[in-house]
């Protein structure tokens, strides 16, 4: 049973560029959440997608957007990259209930130069 898979694992971008990160949820899960983990910090909630809609959003600017596809996979897009966007981006899937356990992928490490 494949767990949560994310791609790419590492990438380097320059300021002002745009990036797309991808996530495939664990089999049987229909909900995907995205978190940003800066160096030395805990993960911070970006947003959650359920039934192809953004269900809840954290305190992130509109430069951060997402999408969920009919097969429940998801993308995170970040526009106009800033140096401060350098972080590990974690995708987590769950069964969509409020008490459903989050299963995390290994993350995509983004470096912005």
């Amino acid at each position: 049973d494949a767990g949560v898979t994310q791609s790419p694992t590492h990438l380097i971008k320059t300021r002002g560029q745009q990036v797309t990160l991808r996530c495939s949820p664990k089999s049987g899960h229909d909900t995907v959440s995205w978190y940003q983990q800066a160096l030395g910090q805990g993960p911070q909630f970006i947003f959650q997608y359920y039934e192809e809609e953004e269900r809840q959003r954290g305190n992130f600017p509109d430069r951060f957007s997402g999408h969920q596809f009919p097969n429940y996979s998801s993308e995170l897009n970040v526009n106009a990259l800033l140096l401060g966007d350098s972080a590990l981006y974690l995708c987590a899937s769950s069964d969509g209930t409020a008490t459903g356990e989050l299963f995390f992928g290994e993350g995509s490490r983004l470096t912005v130069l």
Partner: protein
Amino acid sequence: AQSVTQPDIHITVSEGASLELRCNYSYGATPYLFWYVQSPGQGLQLLLKYFSGDTLVQGIKGFEAEFKRSQSSFNLRKPSVHWSDAAEYFCAVAASGTYKYIFGTGTRLKVLA
């Protein structure tokens, strides 16, 4: 607003010694509480969770945690630490009816042989 505090940034213990990692939360009602572990280059793995009921929760890998409402705490314990427990540990809280987890800044555990 909800928040999570992990007062200890780093903890070093000898293999075989007992361990307690502290977590304090701020939330008006009874929250959902979690402990996750993150090994280098890995995603987060759930150790245990508390939603309601018995305030002493057993988790995987021999870990347990106790919910103390009067102290707003959810400390993680293990009676005998193994070298493989060296990792970063995150406490998280989620409010009832929300899908957003709020993580603490983590405690990095070092285990001495």
